[in-house]
């Protein structure tokens, strides 16, 4: 990564961390405060992003909504990646028959479109933040797992690990010092890319009414609420939409930059 890219990435992450952890610093108002007298105000000096049908301030809601949207994205990616590391590692290190079974299961999961699988899971559990995390996490796991598996397979038979064996390193030291760090390094870029993707999916589920329930300020839910009034108050959908684009694009760009670094090393 170039110096500029590094600074931009850190600034980007710091900004969103601040927004998610302390939204009141940037938006002191109450995201749920209803004021029918001020409904459908266009963006202006009092309401930067305008107001919605109940007179709630869109700006305040977008800022306060970051926590839920990002939390779902992060938690879902963590869940998916954690599952993938376990499955991928087990598959890569286990005897052939077990490897084959895990692979077939992963392929079957892979064949189902991710969003469809998420819908399926929510059909069982009912909508909510928790189910949305599980749904998005589970549906991203197979892709990651296959990657982890091939990564570890390559490393397992590498000269580097043979050299460690010859130097007398036991299994635990080989795994801890060489296998895990080298397998995880390229995954870092992938995780960053995945967070952007997961934020979009979480928003998509909320948009369909399957994620965070209203009136909580969640970007996907806000997008959905604004849809009804699109001809009247375009700002209701535009600003939460922009927030999603901003986070997803930023995460993707950081992921790309990290990935580029991993390729050259």
């Amino acid at each position, binding site marked *: 990564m170039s110096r500029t890219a590094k600074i931009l990435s850190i600034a980007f992450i710091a900004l969103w961390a601040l927004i998610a952890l302390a939204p009141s610093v940037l938006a002191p108002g109450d995201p749920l405060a209803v004021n029918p007298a001020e409904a459908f105000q266009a963006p202006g000096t009092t309401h930067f992003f305008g107001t919605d049908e109940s007179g709630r301030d869109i700006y305040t809601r977008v800022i306060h909504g970051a926590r839920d949207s990002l939390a779902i994205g992060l938690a879902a990616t963590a869940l998916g990646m954690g599952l993938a590391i376990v499955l991928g590692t087990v598959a890569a290190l286990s005897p052939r028959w077990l490897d084959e079974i895990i692979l077939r299961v992963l392929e079957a999961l892979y064949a189902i479109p991710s969003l469809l699988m998420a819908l399926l899971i929510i059909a069982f559990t009912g909508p909510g933040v928790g189910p949305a995390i599980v749904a998005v996490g589970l549906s991203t796991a197979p892709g990651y797992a296959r990657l982890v598996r091939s990564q570890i397979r390559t490393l397992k038979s590498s000269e*580097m690990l043979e*050299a460690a*064996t*010859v*130097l*007398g*390193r*036991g299994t635990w030291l080989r795994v801890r010092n*060489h296998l895990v760090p*080298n397998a995880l390094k390229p995954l870092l870029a992938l995780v960053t890319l995945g967070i952007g993707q997961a934020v979009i999916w979480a928003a998509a589920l909320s948009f369909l009414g399957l994620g965070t329930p209203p009136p909580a300020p969640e970007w996907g839910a806000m997008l959905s609420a604004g849809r009804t009034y699109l001809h009247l108050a375009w700002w209701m959908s535009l600003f939460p939409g922009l927030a999603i684009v901003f986070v997803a694009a930023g995460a993707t760009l950081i992921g790309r930059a990290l990935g580029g670094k991993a390729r050259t090393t």
Partner: protein
Amino acid sequence: MNGQALITARNLSVSFGSTVAVKNVSFTVRAGSCLALVGESGSGKSVTARSLLGLSGGTATADALEVCGQDALSLSERSWQQIRGSSVSMILQDALMALDPLRPVGREIGDALKAHGKLPRAERQQRVIQVLESVRMPEPERRARQRSTELSGGMRQRALIAQALAGNPQVVIADEATTALDSALTALVLAQLRELKEQGRGVLMISHDLAQVAHLADDIAVMRQGEIVEAGVAAQILGNPQHEYTRQLLRAVPSGVPRFVPLSAASRPLAAPMQKDPAPASSALSANGLSKSFGKHAAVESASFEVPRGKTLGIVGESGSGKTTTARMVLGLQPPDAGTVELLGERFAPAHEPQRRKLREQMGAIYQNPLGSFDPRYSVGQLLADALSRGKSKRAAEYRVPVTELLEQVELSLGLLDRNPRELSGGQRQRLAIARALAPKPSVLVLDEPVSALDASIQATVLDLLDRIQVETGTSYLFISHDLSVIEHMSDNVAVMHQGKIIEQGATAQVFAAPQQEYTKLLLSAMPRLR
């Protein structure tokens, strides 16, 4: 007519952008004689050769460049095409890559003729058979119909030469044409080149190996960093070199140099090897009846050998002879189907890994490509700290003294501590690998083709280093190589492997002077010698 100048280059320079790859080189290739351009990687020898075919890819300028009677400086791409193959042609390095695996070799050879469009189809086929006969291809009619994958290595090599000869060129360029080949094929290619010379063609041989060109070249030009540093009649260059660099290259050729005599002037002189203490006569490492098969293919069959303490056993053989499988069994990386390995009198293989882990510190390994054996995240200092701490720490600062000692032992600068091995040169990487292997103070080092990827002068310094370490520490070496001259210089005893079996072993001087087996004789006769 013999002696006639076919290619004349005067002050030829080739540049790529602002980089000058070849600087003011002048030479002449004459009919019926062979000029060898000798130099190490990056010396500009291949670029020079390619510019004679209009293929340098850079900008070529010269006071004069005449190729077979034509002024090559003003040639259009079209006229170059006329010259390539019919006036000047090139024997390529890798037969497996250069021949299309999906087409019969006869057609591949015929294509060269078709491009020049002179002959009708029937005559073309006749010419193909004729060329194949001229390179002594057995059953040329049948071979012409086969694909390159159906041919043996030797036949493929002949087909490749036939392809270069199809257009009856006056000059043949052989760019490292023997580099990747084992000894039998090398001998074949050299014999073919000699024949071309006798037919009155001009041969331009490009090589990094002085010993190899010694028997074929009439004239030699030594290149370094894009310039010819010394040129002249072969006997003169080899017998009485004037330039320091030529002397360095000649000195670096290991064959015929006794053990512990430095190959590089830069190497520290050695203390006399320890001839004393004949007491521990027991062997450091011994293998008894090692065998390994992969499916039906027997990679190694009943290999037995001993490495005495403080001595070197060289294992020599061509690719696929089972050398590396043997090394892997010795290192406990592959369990043998039968047989045992004993290290310092204790059972090492087959054994359970936890039981022999302690013993592993007594045996280190050096590979051909050291970079692959380093964790890419570690710096030089971290690698050594990791080795010294047995994997517990990679903080070089904690092991400052022993890390410094190791670096000094392998003659690496302390300034390299924080570098990543990727940033080091090939020779430096191999020194680092040696330093790491020495960290646990092993009794035995297994070296699998440790210098095969290095240039001659670098190879010389690494071999000198290994010699010095053996003298100073008394470490025993199991030295595996396909290179007879390296083995001759480095080994006290030698074992010759062929098709998975050790067919001959004994004291190096004895095996090299009076080989008993037919195969060993064949190998040795193909070995290029300077001394």
